[in-house]
């Protein structure tokens, strides 16, 4: 019974790891942190596996753990790790436009709050409805609308003034 469970959970981990890692990367903006987030999420899923199998809703559980862990980690970090303006870690601009756009998007996402970022990723990357996003974040649909709207607004603001933002970041760097 235990071996069968192990096989099933290992198969689930292999099937979901890649996509979860990409979502986590969009949330964290760093591959190392994304791997840590996904491994934590899946470890919790493995521990809860027998219960999840009985109740169903594994996908929902995994998504909820992923986003809750992300938001919690940002909240925990915030009291001792104070960001110094918009410090850029010596990263230079890519010469190519697509690369530049990816670079810009990563920095723009970094400028969002954890919950705004989670809402944007769930809505526009995971392509979830507002209802599903609300369930994943453990909040109301109205809150999701508000988080998404403010997140998009922040992204648009940075889109309109990319150069000014860049100069600001470089000055701090």
């Amino acid at each position: 019974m235990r071996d069968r469970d192990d096989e099933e959970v290992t198969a689930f981990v292999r099937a979901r790891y890649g996509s979860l890692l990409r979502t986590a990367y969009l949330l964290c903006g760093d591959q190392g942190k994304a791997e840590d987030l996904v491994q934590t999420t899946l470890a919790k899923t493995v521990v809860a596996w027998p219960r999840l199998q009985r109740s169903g809703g594994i996908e929902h559980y995994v998504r909820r753990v992923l986003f809750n862990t992300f938001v919690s980690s940002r909240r925990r970090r915030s009291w001792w790790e104070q960001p110094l303006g918009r410090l850029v870690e010596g990263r230079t601009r890519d010469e190519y436009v697509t690369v530049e756009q990816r670079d810009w998007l990563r920095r723009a996402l970094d400028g969002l709050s954890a919950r705004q970022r989670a809402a944007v990723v769930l809505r526009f990357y995971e392509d979830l409805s507002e209802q599903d996003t609300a369930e994943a974040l453990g909040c109301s649909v109205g809150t999701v609308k508000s988080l998404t709207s403010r997140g998009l607004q922040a992204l648009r603001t940075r889109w309109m003034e990319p150069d000014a933002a860049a100069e600001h970041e470089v000055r701090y760097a």
Partner: protein
Amino acid sequence: MPDPTELRDGLIKLAEPVGPAEGYELRILRRARRLRARRRIAGAAGAAICLAILVSVFRLVAVGPAPHLVAVPPDGALLGWSAAGDVNADLVREATEVWDRTGSAGPHTAIRPLVAAHDRLLASVVVLQGYDEHKAARLAFFTSDTTAANALRLRADRPMPDPTTTQVVSLVSPRLTGPAGVAGDAFWDTYAIAVAMPGVTALEMSTTTVDEELKQDPVTANGRFVVRALPSATAETTTVTGFIKSSKVLAQWKRVFAVPGDGGAAGDAQGVRGAVVSRSGQQIVVALREDGAVRPGQLAVVAEGLVGRVTTIDRARREATIGLITGAAFAGQAYTNISNVPGSVRGTGEKLLMEHIPAGEKMDVYEGNRVLVADPSQQGDQIGAITIGRAAVTKPADTDTVELIPTANLTDLREVSIMTPFKSAAR
């Protein structure tokens, strides 16, 4: 970022290059094992904490059997009790000297102090037990004489009560503050001293001669030794109640005894007990244990109040006839406990009336007011005055009479005490 579609494409492109590193399955399973272990430890710790809290609650909070008083084996013919509180050796020495000089035949030996301490109300209180020169066990109470620089005076010197069954010893008297045998002047000068056996955690002394609101300190006192001002009280109208309580939180007080007070101070009136043997109309006949001091006109009382007055004595049968307070033959002077409103009381054959109440300011009698009758065996109207009844209604302004409800239950009398003066009482 212009629109949601473009944002979605951007996010897909941004996440596209990210791929899993090798060995992630093992890392996840290792993390899961650590998480399980941590949860097991946390669960065990939580269970241990819950168990500890549960055990603490059971130990601290009053759960389980109620505490009980453990008998103390006697010390020969003396009480085997330890002293209550710290013993003042100087007071013991002084009291022993006074006892040998003025009390039962001395010198007294094997003296064991039950109390030897200074006190807020009586300056000093000493209670000693020991043997007199005839090897008889005795119990003696001493208090300070405030008119003689607080020198100790012997107040009562009694034979030792049964050391195996006694739970409390007490002395109720109006003669505990001045020279030996002299009553205090003030209404408040009657005091009660009580010492209970070890294990008793609180004592309450109450009297039926004064309303609760007139008592100076009606709160139950903690400890085995208590001194209390009980205005106008006598041993017959005083009850000493002992309580025990464990040290656990929320533990309830448990009453372990309620006994009449003890008297016998030099100069005090003494009650002669008599068992009720018959009743006819408004009279009862009591069989006396000793009839030498009993005379017609003396008052018969129970703890709750006045029963009646001795009318005749049959020396041959050692019986006394007592006319009840509700009988037509009963009459006397009385006053209210609050405001000292005077009047006379009279039985009608069925009821009890207070009459001839003066008109005027502060001469009101309200429903429930306690009415007292002076005891002719006492040296004063207020000392040892006995409650005869309570006003049944508030006295109307246009009348000088009010009906009283007797405080003693006259329909169920089994034993009464006849108050005899000190001089004629056997010592």
